C-alpha cells in the first residue's frame, strides 16, 4: 500500500474519532456543569488546556466564557481541533482514498460533515447542544461501524483501526482529565455525592456506565472508575484496550519490529501504575505524560510507515 494512502486513511480515522470525542468532551463538561450546586461558577476554561489548544483559543477569542469556548470547540473553522474542522479534514482525507474505502463511507462522512455545518447554530444554543453532540457521536460511530463491518482486513483496515485507536486513547485521557482538573473548589469535592455524580458523568460520556455497573461495582468510586478506564482491556474506550488494538494493527504490518517493541514497553509501563491511588495533581501529570507518549508513538509510526519523501530517498 502507498504510504500516502495509508497516511490518509490513518488521519481520516483519527479525525473522525477526534470529532466524536470532542463531542463527548463538551457533553461531559456540560453535564458536570448542570450538576453543580447553585452559587458556584463552573469552569469551561480548563477544556481549552485539556484539548491543548490554548494558544489557538487566545488568538481567536477574547472571553473564556461558555459560549466562546463551546463555539471554539465545535464550530470554529479556524481551530484545527474543532468538530467542524476535524470533519472537514476527515472528508478531505477521504476524498483521496475513496477508491480504497467502502463507497458508503464517503457518503456517510459527507452527510456527517454537512450535518455539522448546517446545524452548528443550533449546536451553539444551550437547548440544541445535546442534540448536536449526539448527532456527531452517532454519525461518527456509524462510520466506524460501517468500516468495521464491511472493510476487508488488509493494510487499509489496519491503518484505519490504528488511527482510530491511537486517537481514542489520547481523547479518553483528555475526557478523564476534565474531571481531574480543578473544575471546582476543593471543599466542594469533599461532598461525596457530587463526586460520585461526576464520575458517573465521565463514565456515561464514554458509554461505559452500564459496563462498569455490570463488571466492576454497583458503587461508583473514583479509584474503580479510573482503573476501569485505564486498565480494563475489555472496555473498548479504555486506554489499555486502545493500546492493545494499536499493538495488533502494527504487528500485522511489514517493518513493524521497532514500533511493536515501543508499544509493548508502553503497555508494561501502564500496567505498573496504580491510577486509583493517584491524587488529582499526580493524575493530571500522569495524563500529560501519557499524551506525550502517544505523540511519540505517532511520530515513530509516521517515520516507519509514511516517511516524508526526502527522508525515504536517503534510506532507499
Amino acid at each position: 500500500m502507498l504510504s500516502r494512502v495509508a497516511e490518509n486513511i490513518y488521519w481520516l480515522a483519527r479525525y473522525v474519532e477526534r470529532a466524536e470525542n470532542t463531542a463527548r468532551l463538551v457533553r461531559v463538561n456540560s453535564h458536570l456543569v448542570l450538576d453543580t450546586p447553585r452559587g458556584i461558577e463552573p469552569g469551561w476554561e480548563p477544556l481549552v488546556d485539556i484539548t491543548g489548544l490554548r494558544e489557538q483559543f487566545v488568538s481567536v477569542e477574547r472571553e473564556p466564557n461558555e459560549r466562546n469556548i463551546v463555539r471554539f470547540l465545535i464550530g470554529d473553522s479556524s481551530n484545527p481541533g474543532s468538530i467542524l474542522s476535524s470533519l472537514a479534514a476527515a472528508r478531505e482525507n477521504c476524498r483521496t482514498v475513496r477508491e480504497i474505502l467502502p463507497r458508503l463511507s464517503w457518503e456517510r462522512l459527507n452527510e456527517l460533515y454537512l450535518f455539522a455545518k448546517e446545524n452548528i447554530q443550533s449546536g451553539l444554543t444551550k437547548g440544541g447542544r445535546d442534540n448536536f453532540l449526539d448527532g456527531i457521536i452517532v454519525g461518527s460511530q456509524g462510520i466506524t461501524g460501517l468500516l468495521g463491518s464491511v472493510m476487508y482486513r488488509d493494510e487499509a483496515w489496519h491503518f484505519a483501526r490504528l488511527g482510530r485507536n491511537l486517537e481514542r486513547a489520547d481523547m479518553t485521557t483528555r475526557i478523564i482529565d476534565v474531571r481531574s482538573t480543578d473544575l471546582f473548589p476543593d471543599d466542594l469535592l469533599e461532598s461525596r455525592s457530587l463526586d460520585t455524580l461526576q464520575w458517573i458523568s465521565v463514565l456515561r460520556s464514554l458509554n461505559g456506565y452500564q459496563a462498569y455497573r455490570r463488571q466492576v461495582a454497583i458503587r461508583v468510586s473514583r479509584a474503580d472508575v479510573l482503573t476501569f478506564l485505564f486498565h480494563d482491556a475489555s472496555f473498548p474506550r479504555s486506554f489499555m484496550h486502545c493500546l492493545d488494538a494499536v499493538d495488533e494493527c502494527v504487528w500485522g504490518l511489514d517493518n513493524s519490529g521497532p514500533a511493536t517493541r515501543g508499544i509493548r514497553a508502553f503497555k508494561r509501563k501502564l500496567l505498573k501504575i496504580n491510577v486509583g491511588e493517584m491524587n488529582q495533581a499526580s493524575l493530571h501529570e500522569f495524563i500529560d505524560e501519557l499524551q506525550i507518549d502517544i505523540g511519540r508513538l505517532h511520530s515513530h509510526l509516521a517515520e516507519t510507515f509514511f516517511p516524508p519523501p526526502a527522508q525515504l530517498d536517503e534510506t532507499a
Partner: protein
Amino acid sequence: MPIELKEYDPGPFFDEMMVSKNRARPLAKELISLFRKMNNGELATRQDAADLAIKEMGITFTVYNENEGMIDRNWPFDIVPRIIDKKEWDGIEAGLTQRVRALNLFINDLYHEQKIIKDGVFPAEVLAESKNFRPQCLGVKPPQGVWAHICGSDLVRDADGTMYVLEDNLRVPSGVSYMLENRLVTKRVFPELFESYAPLPVGDYPTQLYEMLAALSPRKIKRPTVAVLTPGIYNSAYFEHAYLAMEMGAELVEGRDLFVEKDDCVYMRTVSGPQRVDVIYRRIDDEFIDPEVFREDSALGVPGLMRAWKAGNVGLANAPGAGVADDKVVYAFVPDIIRYYLSEEPGIPNVPTYRCMFAEERDYVLAHLDELVIKPANESGGYGMLIGPRSTKAERKRFAALIKRNPRNYIGQPTLGISTVPTVVGHSLEPRHVDLRPFILSGRDVSVTTGGLTRVALRKGSLVVNSSQGGGSKDTWIVDTEN
C-alpha cells in the same frame, strides 16, 4: 399524456434517431415506440432514476466554482441512447485504426529521421512552431514504436450524414470511464430495450487497457506493477483516474508517491518500503511530468522520470511528446500523413480545414470570419474558439488580430451542422447536438472501443459538448441489425 413526437423538429440537421417529425429511423423504431407508450411523467421518472443512480454510484467530475472552490458535480447524463448500426460502425472502426496507426508512424518519424519532412509532405516550419514537440524525446525508441497508446478522436456528423474526424486527442484524453458508467446506468433505466437491441458490450475496455499497459513492462514478469499517475483530487478527471486504476487493479499514484533511484528505475513509496513500478499510465501533461527535464516548478511530476523512460526502465503511456500530433494544424495534414505512411486513402474524412499559416488559406479565413469556426492550435475543452456565425463584430476583430499576429496558431473550419439526438427536456424530447469520442488503444495491435462516449450539448441550440461548459453525455449503442 403520452409523449408526442409531432413537435420534434431537428430542423436542418441530421437527426440520429428521427428522419423527420414523428418518423423514426428504422434503427430507432423500437426505442421511439417505447417512448410513445410512455406517458410524459414516466420519462421524467426514468431520467430521475438515472440521476439518482449516478449520484449513488458516485459518478462525478470536478469543476472549479468561485464560491465553493473545487466541487464534485454529478455527471450530467441523458437517458436516451444514441444508436449506430454496426455496418456503419465497422467502417468507422477501420478508419480510426488506420488513422491512429498512421499517427504513431508519424510521431515516431518526427523523433527519428523526419522522412516526412525531407520528402516535402509535412512542412518543417509547422514542426518548428509546434508547442507539443519535445526535442528531449528525439531518438527515443519506445516499445513497439508506439507513442500514442491511448487516443480519443472526436467524430461529428454533418447535415448530409457524413461522419468527420474533428480532432485527435493524443495527450491525456478523458471520458472513457463515463462511457463505461453510462452503459451501467442505461441497463438500469431501459432493461427492456437490451433484450431486443442487444447493444454490443463495452465493458472489456479496462482489461484491454491493462493488457496494453502491461505489455509495456520492461521486466518480463507475470504481474508487472502498473500505476495510474494522476495530478490529484482537484483535477477535473480525477474520478476517471481513480476509476480506471480500480478497474485495472492498478495503483493510483501522485507524483510525490514516486521517485527515481540511482539505478534509473522508478519506485513508489509504500508502507513496506520502496516498490518498483514497471508501467505508468500518466494522466499528467508532458510539461509537468519531470521537473528535471520540463517545467522546473512542477510539483505534480517525478524528478528523473524521463531518465528512467529513456533508459527503458519504465513504460510510459502516452509517451512524452506524443502530443505533437495533437495540434489542430497538424490535424489538417492527417489525410496526407495517412497517404504518406500507409499508401491508403483516409477511411474517415477530415473536416475541411484552412491553415492560416498559408497566405491563401489565411486570406480566405479572414474574409469569412463570420462563417467559420476559428480554433487555436493547442487548446482543448472548447476554449479560445471563435464561432463565426454567433460572434460579434468586436470578437471577429480581435480574432483577426490574433490570426495576423500568429498565423501558425490558427485554423478555420466551416461550421458544421452537427447531428442531433432526442434528449429529455423536462417532460418531453427535444433535439440536441452530439459528437462522439471513441477511444483507440495501440500496442502490438490497435483496438477501438465499441462506440465511444457520446457527448451532448444540453443547452438548446448549443454546439458545445464539453462537460466543463454545460455538456452532458449519452450511452452509445452499436447494434448489429444483420444477425
